[in-house]
């Protein structure tokens, strides 16, 4: 059943529904495994996503396979939608490129105690208030102005510190991955420039594909899980997609540079400089993991502060509050224990554009979600749909699933083919209010630039990586 992918030289073999194998060859240490339907396989001419899956398979210490999720697309170094685990005790590496520049970029979902029909008369007013209250676009600007001492506490304490300072409630933390703070942060490994970039951006969306959306629950697929998570049909929700801003990007930049120079000392050669890596247990590896955790905490505090801005806007225009459903990252490396060939092994699991999806009963889940599994938030394309999923027993790729729709067209070609004003008019005609930072920014994020989110989620579920809980549709978009 082998088939050569159009426009690429990588052979993929269909192993079953929603699962393809890239046979091990050359310097690959493990095979590649792509979870996708045939239609979702990357095939655009010049798209190097599958070659990047092959490149990741050469990393020292990688175990089992170089995995790709159904939304995989061409990144730099790692593919976006890639998962790779290395055996820490066996010289397994950590690679900042396997986390991405936007460390702990992620999604949070909040639910309002009202239904869409009740909100619609005030939607325009709500969007105008969000437009004013949510900082976005290039450069400085955040809702929380802080100094260096406070920033250091954010880097160590994440969303916990933000809540301690009054920017949220204790219940929020129970609904954050890791309780809102990733342990092991080492602000001493965060460079001067990263700190300078981070100071002015706490509580800001940034630009690119980041957004804050007012959504409504369109379909509930799993009533019991939705109920446990606090979600029901027609309910109004807010989804926030953003990350660690300039601070995270600078940390990745700085540590890639360090590893690019250090790799030769460890006898490591990589096929792409952006894959620069060192053993996870080395000095450089531990330094990166400490800085990465600090950036992850910054990202979690950032989403906590944006939640507060959204809550204030809702309170002002509707009189309603917002309860946190969940907050989860899709760009991170974590030291996790998994069973490999029958024995428990400490792995450094890289998820770049992939989301952890813990099964029911996992000890890291909060008590009220232990019976259903970890909520997984999938931001869709502007104007289409987003999903609430849940982890399942036996989920593959170290309990990972997709993270979004996945780009098929470059920003460059999307901006050339789509007029931002026409796109906004089209969305408004369909009842989606749009508040964008720029016309071209809107055009770059046009739905046609992405894979079909419904198809990506069906493939993820079909591959046994997760289960659908609810589908959400946008009512209003604040675009970064």
């Amino acid at each position, binding site marked *: 059943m082998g088939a050569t992918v159009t426009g690429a030289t990588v052979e993929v073999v269909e192993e079953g529904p929603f699962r393809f194998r890239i046979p091990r060859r050359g310097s690959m240490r493990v095979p590649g495994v792509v979870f996708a339907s045939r239609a979702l396989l990357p095939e*655009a001419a*010049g*798209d190097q*996503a599958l070659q990047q899956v092959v490149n990741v398979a050469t990393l020292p210490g990688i175990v089992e396979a170089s995995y790709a999720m159904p939304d995989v*697309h*061409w*990144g*730099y*170094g790692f593919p*976006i939608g890639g998962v790779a685990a290395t055996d820490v005790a066996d010289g397994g590496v950590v690679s900042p490129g396997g986390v991405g*520049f*936007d460390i702990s970029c992620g999604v949070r979902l909040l639910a309002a105690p009202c239904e869409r029909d009740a909100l619609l008369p005030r939607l325009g007013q709500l969007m105008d208030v969000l437009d004013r209250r949510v900082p976005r*676009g*290039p*450069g*400085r600007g955040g809702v929380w102005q802080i100094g260096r001492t406070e920033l250091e506490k954010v880097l160590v304490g994440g969303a916990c510190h933000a809540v301690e300072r009054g920017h949220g409630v204790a219940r929020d933390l129970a609904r954050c991955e890791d309780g809102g703070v990733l342990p092991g942060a080492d602000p001493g490994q965060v460079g001067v*420039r990263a700190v*300078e*970039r981070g100071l*002015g*951006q706490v509580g800001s969306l*940034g*630009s*690119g594909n980041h957004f804050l959306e007012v959504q409504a629950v369109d379909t509930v697929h799993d009533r019991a899980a939705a109920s446990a998570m606090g979600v029901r049909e027609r309910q109004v929700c807010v989804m926030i997609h953003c990350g660690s*801003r*300039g601070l995270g*990007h*600078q940390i*990745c*930049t700085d540590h*890639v540079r360090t590893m*690019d120079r250090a790799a030769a000392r460890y006898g490591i050669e990589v096929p*792409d*400089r*952006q894959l*620069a890596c060192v053993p996870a247990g080395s000095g450089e590896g531990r330094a990166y993991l400490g800085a990465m955790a600090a950036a992850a905490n910054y990202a979690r505090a950032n989403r906590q502060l944006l939640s507060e801005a959204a809550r204030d806007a809702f309170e002002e225009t509707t009189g309603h509050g917002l309860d946190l459903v969940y907050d989860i990252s899709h760009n991170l490396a974590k030291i996790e224990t998994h069973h490999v060939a029958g024995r428990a092994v400490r792995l450094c699991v890289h998820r770049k554009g992939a989301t952890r999806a813990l099964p029911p009963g996992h000890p890291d889940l909060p008590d009220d979600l232990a019976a259903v599994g970890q909520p997984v938030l999938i931001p869709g394309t502007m104007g289409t749909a987003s999903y609430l999923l849940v982890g399942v027993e036996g989920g593959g790729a170290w309990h990972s699933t997709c993270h979004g729709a996945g*780009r*098929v*067209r*470059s*920003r*460059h*070609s999307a*901006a050339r083919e789509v007029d931002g004003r026409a796109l906004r008019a089209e969305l408004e005609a369909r009842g989606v209010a749009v508040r964008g*930072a*720029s*016309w*071209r*920014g809107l055009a*770059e994020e046009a739905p046609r630039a992405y894979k079909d989110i419904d198809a990506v989620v069906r493939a993820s579920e079909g591959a046994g990586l997760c289960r659908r809980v609810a589908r959400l549709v946008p009512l209003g978009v604040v675009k*970064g």
Partner: protein
Amino acid sequence: MGAGGTALRGGHCGVPHTADLTVRAWAPTREECMAHAVRGVAEAFVDLTGARGVRSRVVELRADRDEDLLVDLLEEVVYRLDTEDEVPVDVVLTEVRGALRAELLMADAGTLTVIGAAPKAVTLHGLSLSGGPEGWTCSVTLDV
């Protein structure tokens, strides 16, 4: 946008990449080629028509490889944008004492129209900067 005080020759363009922004540039000299890359990056997210430089930033770049000099130069642009809200409208590059001196003439970002996603990091993926008898070319991909 000048290089070494001369009128800038050559050109630049954006190239499709699903991840983010790839800029290619070409020019008779290394310095002009790098200056075109800076312009290509700035034009990708702000409209430079009528942009006015209000202050200059000088930085000395040192690297073993030419392509790493290009990364350092563009990282300076990203850093100044995030910390000072500045965008380069001109750059003069001069070789001095084994280093490359870059004088960036900056405009305030707030005075320019934003037309696209801002660059946040410079990648090493597919990075190149090389010269030959036909002149210099470079390719660089940025995270936006």
